[in-house]
């Protein structure tokens, strides 16, 4: 099967450029604004959208994304409404790949089979579930692949050559390389170290490799884009959103543009990069 993710990375390869992957939290700071932001991202240059599923206990996320999740939960965001948001986004955009990113419990409680069917219908292309390592592949990864959704695995600096084949075995769409051992929004990794890690992973897989954690500026995005098939930016966009809110944490007239403008700047950084020849 070919998914929107496969198609998008094939196009980018033809164009000889790296992907700009954006992350925002579903329902942050409210449902309507969140939909407008997601709709604005492809226009701002996003090649792939990661949409966070809010969760009370995001153990691998830093304060910014944690706070974004709590803002969304406070306005009553749920997994059902997250899927509705995807459905609404798909009314106008049938090409931009959209990946849901989050933790397993809300999906487990929703019911794995029902979730996969509903996600597919809504127009979700892939899943990144932080707390499901390959040791728990039976839970969601394998059913997701059967349902026609990509299951995108995280590889990290602690994933050595011995472990990589297990991590990559059921991965599809792309590989998400977490450039540092740490939480989202932490300090950036050195681009050279990222280059070495990407080369190492490429010895094990033909999938595109996107790199995230700690990319906040167009320069950093560009440096990573030169080494990898994509750069993921999350915390910087979430912070731009937060800084546009009023004192009560509600969206203002600036909110959608604040995110879109930063995304556009970062996209320029990525698109200015020349990718290393393979």
């Amino acid at each position: 099967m070919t998914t929107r993710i496969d198609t998008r990375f094939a196009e980018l390869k033809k164009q000889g450029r790296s992907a700009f992957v954006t992350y925002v939290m579903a329902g942050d700071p409210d449902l309507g604004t969140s939909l407008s932001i997601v709709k604005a991202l492809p226009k701002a240059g996003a090649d792939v959208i990661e949409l966070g599923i809010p969760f009370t206990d995001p153990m691998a996320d830093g304060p910014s994304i944690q706070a974004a999740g709590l803002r969304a939960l406070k306005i009553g965001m749920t997994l059902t409404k997250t899927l509705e948001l995807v459905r609404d986004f798909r009314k106008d955009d049938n090409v931009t790949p959209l990946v849901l990113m989050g933790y397993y419990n809300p999906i487990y409680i929703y019911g794995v089979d029902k979730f996969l069917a509903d996600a597919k219908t809504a127009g979700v292309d892939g899943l990144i579930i932080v707390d499901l390592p390959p040791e728990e592949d039976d839970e969601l990864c394998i059913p997701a692949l059967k349902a026609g959704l990509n299951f995108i695995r995280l590889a990290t600096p602690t994933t050595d050559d011995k472990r990589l084949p297990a991590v990559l075995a059921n991965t599809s769409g792309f590989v998400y390389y977490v450039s540092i051992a740490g939480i989202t929004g932490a300090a950036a990794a050195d681009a050279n170290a990222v280059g070495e890690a990407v080369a190492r992973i490429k010895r094990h897989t033909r999938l595109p490799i996107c790199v995230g954690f700690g990319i906040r500026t167009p320069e950093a995005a560009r440096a990573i884009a030169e080494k990898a098939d994509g750069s993921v930016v999350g915390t910087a966009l979430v912070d731009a959103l937060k800084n546009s809110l009023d004192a009560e944490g509600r969206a203002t007239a600036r909110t959608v543009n604040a995110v879109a403008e930063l995304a556009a700047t970062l996209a320029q950084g990525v698109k200015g990069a020349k990718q290393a020849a393979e």
Partner: protein
Amino acid sequence: MNIAKPNSYRSGPDERGHFGIFGGRFVAETLMPLILDLEKAYTAAKADPAFQAEMNGYLKNYVGRPSPLYFAERLTEHLGGAKIYLKREELNHTGSHKVNNVLGQIMLARRMGKKRIIAETGAGQHGVATATLCARFGLECVVYMGAVDVERQQPNVIRMEMLGAKVMPVQSGTRTLKDAMNEALRDWVTNVHNTFYCIGTVAGPHPYPTLVRDFQSIIGNETKAQMQEVEGRLPDSLVACIGGGSNAMGLFHPFLDDPSVEIFGVEAAGHGLTQLHAASIAGGRPGVLHGNRTYLLMDADGQIQDAHSISAGLDYPGIGPEHSWLHEIGRVNYLSATDDEALAAFQLLSRLEGIIPALEPAHAIAKVMELAPKRPRDHLMVVNLSGRGDKDVPQVGDILRGKK
């Protein structure tokens, strides 16, 4: 329930860390290599007589084991039924059962060459035990503690600091134990290369529920031998309080395959099961959090709910996965006691036996007050007195004087 009974209740978990559907390893990829290393290190340590011998030496001369099994004569007379014995874990060095597990994990950390130890703590008992053994072995120690708990368990915060540990108040979420565990996991993901995470209860990703249980099983093993010595037979029932459930699992596990022994775990019912509470089995259902599948308090969307208990050590929305399994399979009876019932038990034990219990085991005593009178006089009941009440004296004093 139509679940086939196993030949043994003690053989779990399976090689993937599952007790029935519970347990497992639900953590970020960054942590997986270390968790697999830990499993290997633990398997090797278990098979190494030198490790056991060294541990036994510290258990005897540093921790002060074996802890006594004490016949609570006045409590028994007062309740007028079962003969009640207290397993005196509160007499251990640092004042609770927590030290048994921490000693084992710190010795594992040393084998693995880790120099920095992190822990999470609710009531502070696990934090104090960790700070103590880090001081003893010269290791850096960082303890995450919810800001609410830092406030209500001041004596233990001061103790940890005196022992050289850094106490990090956690301001996120409900600012209690659950959030302290999230922050500890964040620290671990960030410092995985040099840091050992010393988990305080029988929860978390495999192999933690197993190794914590094994280190705590000394409680039940001693109880078995001591009861044989004084009464010449097995006890008829066991009672222990449950937050995550490590003191309970330590007492229960050696008795699981003795069918004559009735076993009771007591959860914290807080203000009552229809209001704010921390009884994951009575008021929760299976879900996935903090590295394992287990009973959790959550809403219809799978969002974790706030737990409440007067006792900071029980104030957690989950329970160890092996307890979830023992509940579903029907081997252990899980009951619950409210804040008020625990307070009444706290006072009763203090006045009748001259033993001020921690608020955690006061929940177990509260159920003993219900169960013991209904049992015959030759019924032998063992209650795990998992910790002493020094840390709770200021809090309970305020409540009894009507300040709060």
